């Protein structure tokens, strides 16, 4: 299926490293759809973007559903720990 489903969020005070080095991130899109490179038919895809710097200013990942769940748990733990600092 082609889900089209997309979550979009604004990012502040964040950076990513793309083919031309580090750049400030403005938005991220998160969606479950066909990957370009990963071997599964559908993956959880995240694009970290800075539209002002062009379409190539992008850090992209395509995660298997299992990998995405692991990442979600790791983010949860990390964010909770950060609150204690």
């Amino acid at each position, binding site marked *: 299926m082609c889900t*089209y489903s997309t979550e979009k969020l604004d990012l502040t005070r964040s950076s990513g490293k793309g083919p031309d080095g580090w750049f400030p991130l403005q938005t991220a899109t998160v969606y479950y*759809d066909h990957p370009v490179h990963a071997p599964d038919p559908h993956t959880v895809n995240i694009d970290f*973007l800075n539209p002002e710097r062009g*379409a190539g200013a992008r850090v992209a990942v395509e995660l298997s559903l299992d990998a995405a769940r692991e990442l979600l748990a790791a983010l949860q733990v990390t964010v909770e720990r950060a609150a204690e600092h």
Partner: protein
Amino acid sequence: MQHDAVLAETIGIRGHGDDEIEAYTARPMDAAPRGGMIVIHHMPGYDAATKEITRRFATMGYHAICPNLYTREAPGAAPDDAAAAARAQGGVPDERFVGDAAGAARWLRSLPTSNGRVGAIGFCSGGRQAVLAGIALDVQAAIDCYGAFVVGAPPEGFPLQVSPLADRIPELRAPLLGLFGNEDSYPSPDQVDELEKLLQEHGKTYEFHRYDDAGHAFFAVDRPSYRPAAAVDGWQRIADFLARHLATREA
């Protein structure tokens, strides 16, 4: 020996709003009159696989053109980056697609060997857009390969600019060929039934072929969704359909 030279190249055409957009074309080099195909790329963009499909239509004897629907969001970008940029900006508005496809049809008809007949084929999101081309444009054939949301509403909170075309089916003016996988969810077999019912109710010329053991994107040779049996039969159906609707009419 048959003269079968094909020229494939990137060109600029005038699309919606008279904007110049990028397009990939492939066309046979012999002087025979022939119809033309607009190839509508899938959501992952104007990529190598879609360009290969464009060349395939030229080897089948048609002029073919694939407009880069993401030219404006990401001029000159890699196809995957362009698709990501377009998605982040909400996808391609229908009005803009229609304008770009109209420009592609104009370009096809301007070729000295055009027979004046033009078809549109689309895959995935392009399948829906092929139906839209059959509604909004003067085309003589439309081919919908597993397009989602021709019928059936997108989920709540859906950020992309996609709306169902069910209420516009009465306006469909081109014969429609639909190719679908029975294991697809978007469109589901029920949604394909619903579309077929609408076509019947409104007396439209159509033919649908549905494949078992195939889901979405069964034509995509570079993806795990590829299903050779469905794809081989599907290409034969496409060839037959175009021979009937795009061929040069005898004088």
